[in-house]
């Protein structure tokens, strides 16, 4: 800058004091460059750990009986009961597990079964007390049955000195002639008066006096006979009402912990890990003597199709899931090779003659019981990602070999169709590792899982070349029903 130049000096002074505030994104970008995320490597020892977690998770998630707390509550437990004069009523027994509050008279089958039944009770059935009802007036009971008539809602002929009659009176006011439904009869009403009125047990009628039945209990004004009440005397006086305080699972919510039923299918490719090579062509350890010759087979495996399908049950929670299933598995692969005659000519020249070409196709069918354990690694309620480990237990049903051979010497072709089932390894454990994407909707959830799977046993037993299959594929699972 030229000396004694005031303009430059002035500009410089102004620029020295010039500041601009950077955006927060600038530091974020710098930070990410200074502290890059390290790529995690997969180590080989991850596999035994995964296997341990697999079985540990199985024991952790396997059902160990119902762990839901079951409690009983009587009317008194609900704090809504008036003192009941009848003995043995509303006594809770430990261990009882009933679900709903059940007014006893209505619980003898559907209340609608006694709705509007006007036909008389069968005569000659002394074991059944009859309740004859007429909407307008009481009808005489059938012969052989004790007369036990119930007043309709308009019938107020109740003797005030009968406590049981008093007890039923308030609810009689609310009696309707509509059809009762189980939902109505099972509704829990913690309000004290209503509850008491609704849940007061029906008294046991032993005399011939005219008795009233709480119409509210059944909401039916047309009970024909008392036999339906009579037949339940035991339960009526033991536990007219029980309440089970259990959390009823929402079986349509597929994001919750529970058991799910679904189907799966997968498609992929097989790769035989061991080339089907008997002897390498240039294996000089078997170099023929100067006068003789050897026959050498050389071949290699080729990829084939792999598919499987079946049903699966899954137990899952937010962090992990375990599933097992039953399905069928099909594998195909092939190998191609050639047979040579190697010889030494004139003690110095190595000679190879092609004897035949062959192409062999293998098909393998098996039942499979896939076990898998998923560990959630990311995602939200609807979309999540899981690490999948699994052990696929395949049981060989059939192993077939079809060989086409073309002879170069005499130009002949022929095929061999051999069943290798007897030589196959029946049990084929296959270890699987994959990454699963899961999409959870309200009524279903599905998974998409690219995987790699390795057969731990050779496809054929020892004495034959080891053929371990390596599968690469994609599996999809669709869980359509929550069963628990």
């Amino acid at each position: 800058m030229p000396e004694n130049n005031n303009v430059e000096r002035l500009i410089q002074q102004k620029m020295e004091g010039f500041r601009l505030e950077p955006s927060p994104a600038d530091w974020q970008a710098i930070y990410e460059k200074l502290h890059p995320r390290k790529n995690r490597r997969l180590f080989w020892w991850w596999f035994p750990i995964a296997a341990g977690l697999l079985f540990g998770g199985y024991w952790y998630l396997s059902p160990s009986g119902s762990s839901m707390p079951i409690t009983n509550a009587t009317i008194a437990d609900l704090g809504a009961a008036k003192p009941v004069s009848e003995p043995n009523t509303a006594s809770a027994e430990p261990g009882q597990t009933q679900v709903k509050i059940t007014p006893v008279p209505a619980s003898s089958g559907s209340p609608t079964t006694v709705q509007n039944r006007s036909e008389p009770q069968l005569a000659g059935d002394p074991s059944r007390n009859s309740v004859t009802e007429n909407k307008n007036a009481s009808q005489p009971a059938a012969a052989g049955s004790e007369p036990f008539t119930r007043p309709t809602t308009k019938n107020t002929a109740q003797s005030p000195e009968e406590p049981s009659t008093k007890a039923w009176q308030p609810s009689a006011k609310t009696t309707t002639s509509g059809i009762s439904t189980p939902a109505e009869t099972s509704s829990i009403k913690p309000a004290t008066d209503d509850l008491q009125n609704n849940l007061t047990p029906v008294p046991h009628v032993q005399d011939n006096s005219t008795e009233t039945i709480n119409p509210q209990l059944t909401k039916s004004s047309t009970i024909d006979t008392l036999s339906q009440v009579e037949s339940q005397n035991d339960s009526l006086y033991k536990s007219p009402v029980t309440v089970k305080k259990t959390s009823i699972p929402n079986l349509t919510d597929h994001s919750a912990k529970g058991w799910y039923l679904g189907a799966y299918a997968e498609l992929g490719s097989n790769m035989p890990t061991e080339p089907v090579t008997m002897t390498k062509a240039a294996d000089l350890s078997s170099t023929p003597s100067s006068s003789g010759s050897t026959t050498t087979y050389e071949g290699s495996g080729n990829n084939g199709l792999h598919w499987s399908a079946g049903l699966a049950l899954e137990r899952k929670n937010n962090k992990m899931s375990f599933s097992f299933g039953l399905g069928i598995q099909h594998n195909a692969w092939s190998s191609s090779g050639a047979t040579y005659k190697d010889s030494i000519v004139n003690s110095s020249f190595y000679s190879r003659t092609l004897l035949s070409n062959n192409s062999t196709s293998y098909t393998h069918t098996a039942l499979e019981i896939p076990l898998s354990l998923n560990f959630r690694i990311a995602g939200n309620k609807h979309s999540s990602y899981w690490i999948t480990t699994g052990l696929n237990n395949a049981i060989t049903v059939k192993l077939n070999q079809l060989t086409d051979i073309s002879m170069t010497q005499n130009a002949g072709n022929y095929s061999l169709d051999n069943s290798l089932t007897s030589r196959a390894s029946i049990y084929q454990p296959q270890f699987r590792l994959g990454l699963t994407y899961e999409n959870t909707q309200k009524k279903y959830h599905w998974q998409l899982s690219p995987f790699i799977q390795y057969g731990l046993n050779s496809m054929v037993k020892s004495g034959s070349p080891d053929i371990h299959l390596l599968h690469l594929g994609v599996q999809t699972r669709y869980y359509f029903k929550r069963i628990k």
Partner: protein
Amino acid sequence: MPYLQGPYLQGRDLGGRDLGGRNILVQCNTCAKAGVRFSAMINARELVSRCLKNDAVAQKQLYQHFAPQMLAVCYRYTKDSDEASDVLQEGFVRMFRNLNQWKEDGELGAWIRRIMVNTALNWLRSQKRIHWLNEEHINENYDSDSVITPVSKMEARELADMIRQLPAGYQTVFNLHAIEGYSHVEISKMLNISEGTCRSQYMRARKHLAELIMKTENEKLNYYAGKQ
């Protein structure tokens, strides 16, 4: 190392010019968000040593102190704010990665500023916006004092925006010579141009800037005259 008093406690920005081995003012963002003004002085050497250990907190403190000034530098060498942010980010990354080369007896702010200028020049080269023409003979006429009064009235941001309106070559040479204080010889080496070209570019930049300033001044005068 005694802490400096006075200007630090009054919250004046020190511009990073006298921080060699001394203290710098660090603001606490958390406290600022809580509505509490808080600043602490941290020894520059200590902060740098923590940065050398890849301490993210120290790096952020250093960044927060110098970023406004350095962004202003980048702003003058570029044409828009996004470009300035890019240069700022690249410059700070280079600075943190080469912080071990800082000599403790030097001024940290000046050192960072040199890095920023070099980063900006590299960025300009990568953009290939500057096409130099060899101009050996130029009449150096610094008779531009007529713009002193308008410049003294202008805001720094307004002046920086005018510098950005210069053609890229003029802008670069003017920034390097008039503001950073590099000589023409140094600039010619930095930009790989001849000294004569550098001088001529500077004189044209100066003239161009004076015209812009006068034009803006006249527009202001006309605006206010019209209002009255």
